[in-house]
């Protein structure tokens, strides 16, 4: 085991941690060569991941909106999107190569698709669980469809959308590393080229730790964003809290699915029980 190379037991592990940390600090960045070191890889990783997430979100919102409004659209779209999810990311990166070459898009297109797959059901469910009395109140106040959508329905859907965004962003940040196999991939490059090809464990460990840290920091930022965007949910155990990211994606969807009458998914009927779909 590499973990005990320098000694035995706890001391060996400690020496190993020290060695890996020292390597990380020593190779963090090179002022003379801006493209060398760990820091540029981290920036590249963030660029690929965040662009993918943003593009996925930008597509998921209007598509989810359309699916929520025209219920008939949802089952075929959902099926198509689920088939896409069955396609492994690694294979998709290679399948993109003839069309995008070795550019950022080779990573961004597949990763945006994965974000879309995870987000779409959440956008639709979020919009569908807007309580009917809330909608009616907006209508009674004279809100038109667009104003109602932007100022009432979208904000109410925010916790569910952000729950999906948290799952999607963590998964995407992790998956960017795989793109290193096609010559991209930020921290994955650190793991593959500096670590694996040179049979050296320190870059691999630093890479893994930074990917996990980046994922958790991004997750925390999204929690803060939700807090800021939903002032009415503060200080009570609203539906946003019931949807902790700890739950698996399927569990979330199962919760939504079982909380919503099956028949109501395809018809326009909205019962008051849908208000509790998030519980």
């Amino acid at each position, binding site marked *: 085991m590499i973990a005990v190379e320098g000694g035995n037991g706890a001391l060996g592990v400690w020496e190993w941690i020290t060695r890996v940390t020292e390597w990380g600090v020593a190779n963090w960045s090179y002022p003379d060569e801006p493209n060398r070191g760990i820091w540029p890889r981290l920036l590249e990783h963030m660029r690929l991941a965040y662009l993918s997430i943003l593009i996925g979100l930008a597509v998921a919102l209007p598509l989810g909106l359309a699916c929520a409004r025209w219920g008939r659209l949802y089952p075929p779209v959902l099926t198509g999107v689920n088939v896409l999810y069955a396609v492994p990311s690694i294979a998709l990166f290679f399948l993109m190569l003839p069309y995008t070459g070795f550019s950022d898009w080779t990573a961004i297109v597949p990763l945006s698709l994965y974000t879309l797959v995870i987000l779409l059901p959440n956008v639709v469910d979020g919009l569908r669980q807007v309580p009917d009395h809330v909608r009616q109140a907006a209508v009674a106040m004279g809100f038109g469809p667009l104003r109602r959508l932007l100022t009432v329905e979208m904000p109410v859907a925010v916790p569910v959308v952000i729950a999906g965004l948290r799952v999607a962003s963590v998964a995407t940040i*992790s998956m960017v590393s795989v793109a290193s196999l096609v010559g991209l991939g930020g921290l994955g490059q650190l793991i593959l080229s500096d670590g694996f090809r040179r049979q050296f464990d320190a870059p691999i460990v630093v890479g893994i730790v930074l990917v996990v840290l980046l994922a958790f920091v991004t997750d925390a930022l999204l929690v803060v964003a939700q807090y800021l965007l939903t002032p009415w949910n503060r200080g009570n155990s609203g539906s946003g809290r019931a949807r902790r990211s700890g739950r698996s994606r399927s569990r979330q969807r199962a919760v939504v699915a079982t909380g919503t009458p099956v028949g109501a998914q395809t018809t326009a009927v909205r019962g008051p029980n849908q208000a509790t779909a998030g519980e």
Partner: protein
Amino acid sequence: MDILNELAAWFADPAQWTGPAGIPARMGEHVYYSLLGLLISAAIAVPIGLLTGHTGVGGFFSASLANFARALPTIGVLFLIVLAAGIGLVPVVAALVALAVPPILVNTHEGVRGVEPRLKDAALGMGMRGHEVLFKLELPVATPLILIGMRTAAVQVVATATIAAYVGVGGLGRYIVDGQARQDLTMMLGGSVLVVALAVVTTLLFAGLRRLLVAPGLRSEAAAAR
């Protein structure tokens, strides 16, 4: 499209379908590694998930585990295990197990824990004992979710078994690795198409399993949870 013609020619070449480097042999290796990884993962994760879900212990642990596992970059884990334990089947399967255990465990736990309390009360009221409640009520009701967890794990395992070729064992990833080494885009694409096909077949298999294993009364709910 030019590339599609080349790809079709690659698949049509009879040399592609025989010998130890042929598609059937590579496919066999790929399926073998994936199945091994998935079965070991299920053997570890399902019993633990049933137990923690039934007793209600460890919910926080399983939630944290799922979050952490989602963030963990698989290729890093695989390469690290290979570096530590050497090249061979064992590190590959170990990495696949590390990948597949969390989704199965979490879905089993959440599936069992999420069983309607009234159903459990009814079962207890009918005089069922703890293990009877678990196996006659909670396990069947949780089956759809457990299968979703297994499907997620299976697709990830099939995809990740591709990387196994980078660390010297066979499988469909060999086409991708060798194609990359020889600058042969057609070969890489051929390998990718095969992996995609296998992943889609895996998904379909789980749809069939759901039909087979999920009790009729639960099917509509299972379909909705899909």
